């Protein structure tokens, strides 16, 4: 199909092309909901079966890092929305600035995720042979506060008293944790790639009030990935904080 300017050959008008692209992204997001849905269902079933171990697993996560990341991601959605708006009103410079800001915030999110994963590795919380929910409290490091470690140890022992198979069920929690946050991170990486592509386009001045479809549909995608995190954060970090 030949392309005339911004209009691909299969379309009659730019409006039709834009409407089509937006609908395509919405339909894609519907499939994504179902894709993550399978994981959310697996999470729900397992959490209702092993709520004690899931609570204990959840409490090992660093709520400060998780909370920070939530703020970062919501900020990035704001900058993304601003980028879309800037493209629509024709502020070409702002488009680039806001896209770069979005990419920066996304990268910070992924960086923090790396730190969190590394912690889990250090604490023997990667599902597999070395997995041990007791490891952290039994091997405190020099930087740990002894008082807090004592509380943590007590909590872990309580958990084991309720559910002697906490190590097996804790692994289920962490399998789901890594599967869900891993899949989410993968979507962030894809999003970052798309942002790089958009930034290149915005430097070339491609996005105008007449033609800004790419910014808009990548924006939709970015907000979706953000919303997934809004669900992941409470389900993974906050389920047992009241103890």
């Amino acid at each position: 199909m030949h392309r005339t300017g911004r209009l691909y050959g299969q379309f009659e008008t730019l409006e039709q092309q834009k409407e089509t692209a937006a609908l395509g992204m919405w339909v894609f997001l519907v499939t994504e909901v179902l894709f993550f849905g399978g994981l959310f269902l697996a999470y729900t079933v397992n959490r209702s079966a092993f709520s004690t171990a899931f609570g204990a697993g959840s409490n090992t996560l660093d709520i400060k890092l998780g909370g920070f990341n939530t703020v970062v991601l919501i900020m990035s959605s704001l900058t993304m929305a601003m980028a879309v708006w800037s493209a629509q009103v024709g502020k070409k410079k702002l488009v680039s600035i806001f896209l770069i800001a979005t990419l920066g915030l996304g990268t910070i999110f992924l960086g923090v995720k790396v730190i969190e994963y590394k912690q889990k590795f250090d604490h023997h919380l990667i599902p597999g042979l070395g997995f041990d929910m007791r490891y952290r409290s039994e091997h405190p490091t020099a930087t740990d506060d002894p008082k807090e470690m004592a509380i943590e140890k007590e909590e872990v022992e309580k958990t084991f008293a309720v559910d002697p198979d906490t190590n097996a069920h804790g692994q289920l929690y962490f399998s789901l944790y890594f599967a869900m946050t891993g899949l989410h991170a993968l979507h962030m990486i894809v999003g970052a790639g798309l942002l790089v592509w958009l930034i290149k386009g915005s430097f070339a001045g491609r996005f105008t009030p007449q033609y800004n479809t790419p910014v808009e549909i990548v924006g939709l995608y970015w907000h979706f990935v953000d919303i997934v995190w809004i669900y992941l954060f409470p389900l993974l970090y906050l389920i047992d904080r009241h103890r």
Partner: protein
Amino acid sequence: MSTPPTPVRELPHKHYLNATYGAGLRSWLLTTDHKRIALLYLASVTVFFFIGGVLATMIRIHLLTPGGALVTPETYNKLFTMHGVAMIFFFLIPSIPAVFGNFLIPLMIGAKDLAFPKINLLSWYIYVIGGCFVLYSFGTGGLDTGWTFYTPLSSVYSNSAVTPAVLGIFINGFSSILTGLNFIVTIHTMRAPGMTWFRLPLFVWAHYATSLVMILGTPVVAITLLLAGLERMFHLGFFNPALGGDPILFQHLFWFYSHPAVYIMILPAMGVISEIIPTFARKPIFGYAFIAGSSIAIAVIGFLVWAHHMFVTGESTYAALTFSFLSYLVAIPSAVKVFNWTSTLYKGSISWDPPMIYALGFIGLFVIGGLTGLFLACLGLDIHIHDTYFVVAHFHYIMVGGAVMGYVGGLHFWWPKITGRLYPRALSRFAAVVLFIGFNLTFFPQFILGYLGMPRRYHTYPPEFQVLNVLSTAGASILALGYLLPMSYLTWSMRYGRVAGQNPWPATGLEWKTDSPPLTENFEVTPVVTWEPYDFKNRPDLGLATGTPLPAPALGDD
């Protein structure tokens, strides 16, 4: 009074097959033309159909004698598993949508191409990559879990190449998702002026419903198989009871897709039949809105019946009752279709062209397959016939008797449009009858075997079942002939067949108002639709008007 158009005896000068956008193979592998992509799919699904067919033949040869005639029990497990995987995931699911849907939806709605031509090509490549993974699995130890991949057999205990197969099906899922996405968006935004929703051909309605199932179901099976694969690779415990996981959860997630997947196979075939029946009965289809609506109803209800595959897993009686009831409900829209097709035939001026014979065969086989589905939806009876050959016979009546009959029928119906040429009439009618007889002889005995208690997936059986098994194997060889015949004369016709002209049958869809084979852009000018669908009386543009004699179908022997 207008005279029927004289048939064109020459292929058009320029069409999608001889348009050059580059040289040779490159112009095919990098094409974004939906018609060429459809042919890429046609070639690749045929490869998988052939692989699956060879495996099926080996199964039937093995079952000639009670002790098993051909392979070891372990190999037998691999044969039926690989047969299922090749046929379901790589033939049946892409067959009609990816070949005919791809080729015809833009033509039928008067568009130049699908909404996303590049994504369309991408989905073919994804299919090929997924297919390579699965073939790698077949070639390096095979697969013995059953096509259902039940855990923990697939994730822990099986010693066959499960991981590449699961990854291959995971990857292939995205091909299906992108195709469904493309169809939905295309049908929404690319229709020609005047092509309102209720002027859409029923084939397009069926594909809309199919696409809904594709986009809503496939992601779920993708994530499920990914989890099973991760479980196998990294010893995670999602579905492994030894590690606290829940194997029943896998079954729920798997069937949440894999039951609706049956409708991915049968709905497009119903769409094909809804095109063929009015064309060869020379009558508007009876109850257009009901057939269109029943496609959507089947897609929607189809999502609510999955646990009828799990009546014996110990699910609660109330859940089982609900799923049983919902499964019965699917019979209503299915019956609506069958009654409307037969009502269309009533007082029609029927011609016995090959596509029509396939379509009538479809109706017969689908009725048997559908009614025996009700047996299986019945809670009490299902306990008796669960996992027996009754189930095997039932779903082959739907998938082969239904979906494949529709596929081959569609191939005969649109072959002149795809290639611009006709095939031998007598031989093709003979092949359709051979297929029908061979199919019934293969699978009808399996109903009896199942009812008598022969379990599926066993490499051996008691001697008293031999007669029925031999009948089934004999039928399979006739069935094979029924597939090889069309394969050979259709291939022959590509070069030597009589030139078809724009509208050989004649039929009323938009796709018949352009050249055969069509231009790359489909239409010289975007058509404007001013007529109602399946109207054989008020279409002077096709030589169909009140008072004119019905033109005889152009098909004939050379």
